[in-house]
């Protein structure tokens, strides 16, 4: 199985590399496209990108670790981002984060549930301050949250997944 998936993996990467003309200056959009495809940046893919662009792998790894958007580990199906910008913070975003973590059995060090369903992270501002406090689940913004309503959202998703 393994070699087959790997070939498929690199086919997609080649497609992305070609789309950006294999230009080393386009490294960030390339990595963004790769991450859209795999939901994270697998190490072997980064090495492949580096070789294809004629860059040292350290340079690619350096860029991948510098920017917050790049993930080096796979994320869950639902990425829950709790906004901790100033407006959300003064409107008590931390109790929401704590409540969600508690419900999912996660903490500051463990961000993803073992069943790969949920990843919990914080983000410094989503620009939806008028709705503070805000959480985003994948691409859906939920405003004026409370710890109770946030946990209710998670429970809803858990039930939905269990029914599948």
């Amino acid at each position, binding site marked *: 199985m393994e070699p087959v998936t790997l070939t498929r993996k690199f086919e997609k990467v080649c497609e992305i590399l070609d789309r950006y003309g294999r230009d080393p200056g386009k490294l960030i959009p390339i990595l963004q496209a790769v991450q859209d495809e795999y939901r994270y940046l697998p190490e072997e893919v980064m090495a492949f990108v580096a070789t294809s662009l004629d860059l040292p792998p350290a340079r690619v790894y350096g860029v991948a670790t510098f920017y917050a958007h790049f993930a080096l580990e796979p994320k869950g199906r639902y990425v829950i981002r709790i906004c901790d910008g100033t407006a959300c913070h003064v409107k008590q975003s931390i109790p929401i984060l704590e409540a969600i973590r508690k419900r999912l059995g996660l903490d500051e060090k463990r961000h993803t549930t073992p069943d790969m369903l949920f990843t919990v992270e914080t983000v410094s*501002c989503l620009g939806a301050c008028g709705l503070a406090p805000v959480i985003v689940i994948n691409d859906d913004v939920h*405003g004026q949250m409370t710890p109770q309503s946030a946990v209710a959202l998670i429970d809803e998703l858990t039930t939905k997944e269990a029914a599948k």
Partner: protein
Amino acid sequence: MTATPDLKHIATAFSTAAAKPVRRVIICAGTGCVANGALKVHQALIEKIAAEKLPVIAELREEKAEGSVWVSKSGCHGFCQMGPLVTILPENILYTRVKVGDVAEIVETTLKQGKPIDRLVYADPTSGAHCVHGTDIPFYKRQQRTVLKECGHIDPDDIREYISHGGYEAAEKAFTKMSAKAVCEEVEVSGLRGRGGGGFLTGKKWELTRIQTEPKKYVICNGDEGDPGAFMDRSVMEGNPHSVIEGMMIAARGIGADEGYVYVRAEYPLAVRRIRYAVEEAGKLGLLGDNLFGSGLSFRLHVMEGAGAFVCGEETALIASIEGKRGMPMPKPPFPAQSGLNGKPTVINNVETLATVPLIIRNGAAWLRGIGTKGSTGTKNFALTGHVANTGLIEVPFGTTIREIVFNIGGGVTRDNGTLWPDGFKAVQIGGPSGGCLTTEHLDLPLDFDSLKTVGAMVGSGGLVVMNRDTCMVSVARFFMQFTQNESCGKCVLCREGTRQMLALLDDIIEGRATAETLVTLETLAVAVGKGSLCGLGKTAPNPVLATLRYFRSEIDAHVFQKRCPTGRCKALRTISIDAAKCKGCTACARKCPVHAIKGEVKKPHVIDPAVCIKCGACAAACKFDAVMGV
């Protein structure tokens, strides 16, 4: 090659078609309103109108417009908290918090009979007055909208509508009737200063780039709005993306650039989409590309999505990011004007600055000088958030006071639960992690670049976070320090290590370990970090701490010397106890306590053992008699 677009013709054709529908319904589709379900309301409205056998159009096409109801989307109005917002023309009725369930009534009462629905219009919480028209609402009435004038009114995805409001006329003028030098001069004379925080004269920056002899030059729009609590640029990019593109075209004309980048924060997916679409549309009309307006000049525009690094708001770091590198700042000089993107002369301007430029070219430098103060001309957008009744995006002339913004536009200070708190004002945090605090003594200070500097704050990008008296200022300072510590790129030792140490010292204060020496070290470090850092991030990182030390010394002292948080927000410094006079001995608290720290007999006052208590506050939540103190 596309022929030179006939702007007048496009504008007339659009206005003629736009006059044909009997009504226009505009649904705000900014990030905030979409989160509240605006797209569902949009869909439901179209379906309901069609079901009622009324002609409905979602896009303006002349042949179908006659007698129809035109349902369109707009960008952000700025009044996000009251969203989804629905405007109905020609009556100019504004509905707030519209739900799918309200759609049937809107169609029946307003669209068919032209009557407003009382329960959907905004009711002023102080006077109780119902405001049928958006312009009656105090939040809007006291603003002066120039850059945001079209935001929330025009369809950002329809370039024809922007053109029908005079859009791209200024670019045409700059390319056909003005010399490059004249463009830079006009902007310089207007007194326009960079809205991204620096406050440098835009025209001067352009002139410095224009005089470079290198033939290849770039224009970059900095839309990497990373300040937490700020969303001015997001709203402009979402609500009127063409104004930003036009500003960039004029900048390109002024400095002689033929290529540009719009760098947008990845956290703003809607803004990225709208800008990308706007660039495509402008290209189709021949407003971007070669031989613009028959001048023989070219300008191409790319959109780049950021990847989540606050430091990329710094211009040299942003350039590194576009080049595909780690976004680390470079020492200046050389300035980007001399050697920027790919080593070529580059102008980097903020979104709001660029959106102001077409207005200057169209109305003249004197127009901008007529607004604002002598040293800070024009208007400024602020994101008003926090403990304030009306949160949202506002635009006011420079020189407006904090009092006007918080109490008149913002409608006053609120408690955590959102109710008004007339004497609850404590501070306004301005300028995000680089800024400072303004307190009651600054309520009448005019907001402009220079007067803010005198009190140790800065305009920054324009985030205004109002804080009520329940907010612990030491925690706020710690919040910003944690932010900058996290976002420090690691290049300068003092920024990388200094912010970490400052954060640890603030933790000591909050957790009750601090001594007098902590404060001395904190102050010394604050000065050192500011001096020993290369870019704006490090240079201004100590500002929130310095502002707290300056204006809230007694609050810090209470934490350090009395081990007491005056607001009771710092968990480690709380002592929770039970008021024996109020306690009925119901045992509710003892049963809820996760660590069994509460002892007592039934129907007799209970006691908390401070040695066991973890200060979680569960007891207070369980108590029906308000007997738990200190939470």
